[in-house]
């Protein structure tokens, strides 16, 4: 018998390669939940293929995918309560779809047109919506982590039973915001779950050049909070670890740091070519641990899905996405002078002056 490994050095798993689960960790979710999770996995996977294609065709400006990492946002999304708040980074926008945000509105944000709740102001993959308590990422690496801690702190002060979930990548663990947020979370014992998606790369820099710690989870020790290293490609493990951490937070047990070990199968974003810095062999190795395949193996084992089921599901999802794109693309753009709205609660005189100047002046060219 080997000594049990510490949670921040080991790898918390539920799914086994043979399609069974570890009874000690299995959350034993009802079948319809498992099937809904599966649908979300396939939906996010297919959605991102379509979004990248739109970008390649010049129909939208940018997209950052989470391909190969879907299990983490989806697992966390299912574990969160509707009243919980999410502070995502680049690869978790889709968590809002899991939490009930309409797909066409999500896609409208990628186009930035009149149906976009963000009114054309924010980049794709930085989506947010009050409706699902999801706050926009600021593009800068790190600031959302202390913000998640602050939101949790407010919940504690106001005695609300809400948990704040803050996401980050492995690269973000090098920023002061990460360390200080962990420290504050520990000191104020706030109800938050900080989730790091260790996808092994921060653009071109491997995690091994980001830190010399044995794991990322172990960093939590220094701040006095529990750290758990989770198999981020195991949907049920992510779900279980998050649900446990959130339950502890709700009970006044304070924060948890989860390192979800995964891999960025795709490029960093639509402006990246990863062959410049990493080997195809490494990518192939990780494709064997694809979160969708692993979850599917389990569902097949349970007799819940088969090829015919998937073909029908994909066709249905494909139609759903196509319908949403069709409903959204070609809609009018927000008016030019809408840029002056929402800078303040009420525009001060100088913005009204600039609005008049804009409307009286020459039409702005679009970028060539």
């Amino acid at each position: 018998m080997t000594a049990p490994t510490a949670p921040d050095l080991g790898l918390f798993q539920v799914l086994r390669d043979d399609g069974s689960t570890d009874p000690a960790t299995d959350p034993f979710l009802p079948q319809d939940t498992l099937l809904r999770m599966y649908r979300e996995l396939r939906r996010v996977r297919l959605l991102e293929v379509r979004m990248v294609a739109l970008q390649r065709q010049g129909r939208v400006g940018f997209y950052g995918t989470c391909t190969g990492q879907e299990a983490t946002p989806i697992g966390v999304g299912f574990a969160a309560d509707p009243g919980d708040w999410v502070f995502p980074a680049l690869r978790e926008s889709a968590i809002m779809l899991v939490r009930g945000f309409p797909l066409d509105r999500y896609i409208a944000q990628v186009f930035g047109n009149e149906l976009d709740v963000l009114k054309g102001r924010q980049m794709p993959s930085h989506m947010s919506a009050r409706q699902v308590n999801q706050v926009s990422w600021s593009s800068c690496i790190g600031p959302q982590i202390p913000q998640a801690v602050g939101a949790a702190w407010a919940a504690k002060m106001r005695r609300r039973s809400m948990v704040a979930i803050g996401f980050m990548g492995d690269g973000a663990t090098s920023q002061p915001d990460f360390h200080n947020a962990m420290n504050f979370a520990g000191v104020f014992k706030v109800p938050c779950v900080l989730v790091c998606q260790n996808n092994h790369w921060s653009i071109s820099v491997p995690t091994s050049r980001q830190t010399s710690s044995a794991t990322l989870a172990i960093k939590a020790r220094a701040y006095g909070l529990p750290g758990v290293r989770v198999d981020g490609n195991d949907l049920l493990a992510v779900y279980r670890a998050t649900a446990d951490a959130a339950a502890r937070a709700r009970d006044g047990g304070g924060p948890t740091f989860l390192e979800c070990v995964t891999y960025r199968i795709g490029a960093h974003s639509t402006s990246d070519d990863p062959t410049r810095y990493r080997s195809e062999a490494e990518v192939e190795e990780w494709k064997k641990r694809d979160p969708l395949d692993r979850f599917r193996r389990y569902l097949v084992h349970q007799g819940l899905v088969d090829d015919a089921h998937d073909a029908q599901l994909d066709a249905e999802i494909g139609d759903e996405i196509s319908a949403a794109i069709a409903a959204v693309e070609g809609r009018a753009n927000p008016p030019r002078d809408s840029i002056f709205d929402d800078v303040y609660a009420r525009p001060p005189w100088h913005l009204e002056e600039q609005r008049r100047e804009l409307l009286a002046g020459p039409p702005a060219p679009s970028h060539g």
Partner: protein
Amino acid sequence: MTRLTYREAVRGALRQILASDPRAFLLGEDVGKYGGAYAVSKGLLAELGPAKVRDTPLCESTFVGAGIGAAIGGARPIVEVMTVNFSLLALDQIVNNAATLRHMSGGQVAVPLVVRMATGAGRQLAAQHSHSLENWYAHVPGVKVVAPATPQDARDLLLAAYADPNPVFVFEHVLSYPLEGEVDETSGAAPLGRAIVRRAGTQLTIVAWGGSLPKALAAAEALAAEGVDAAVIDLRTLRPLDLEAIGASVRATRRLLVVDEGWKTGSLAGEIVAQVVETVFFDLDAPPARVCSREVPIPYAAHLEAAALPSVERIVAAGRGVVRG
């Protein structure tokens, strides 16, 4: 002369510095195999080796701070920050430290540091990637700030920044990188603090720099077609300002228009207008004017982004206004 892009010209100057000075090294995020956020250092790691081109962990405050320390320690670091937006995470190191150390150490400590960063909008990357904050840096005593607009200047001003014993901040506009021009690759450093007249003219002085220069030149052409003869001054160095060159031109044309991609309130354009008014007020025939970004976070959608930024059309309209009243 060789035809080079702005990006290649910066890379050429980096290569020359890194290869010739054993103390020099380049550091920042993804500057190695990736070649930098805007592909400026592409190939330099393979050419010059890992001692010369160093990827750091993802932390602006620390790689700038370590750059300051390395400069104090006798190395000659060139720091690349992906964009001015992310340099905000390093502002304490820059404003409270790099800028003050010489003065507050009674002149004992020098920080011969070069920090390069991209600035400006036009690539649909939304507010947190698109701001033009070079005027914040130009506000700070103890640092120098350059904003090269042409491929030749991209080279010559980087060489100048490197040769200077003070911390120098180099702003490269994101839309400048693909610009092409003839570059003399044997040239030396350009003088810091010197503006240059890019277009002679008699009725209006347009002052611009960096990414706004091509717009100012195009506007001057359009104005010429309307019978307005505008001079265009490329500021090149934002701190210290070349008030002499601006004043000389304004004395001749008697009219001033400043183009600045920063926000109008508190802009560098405002500073230039103020200094001109203070020094050549009685030579002015009309109130000076400014074309700046609208005072909003720069939006993502292409037409909204365009609406927020200075455009050729806006510069032409403003120029017409200054000259014709």
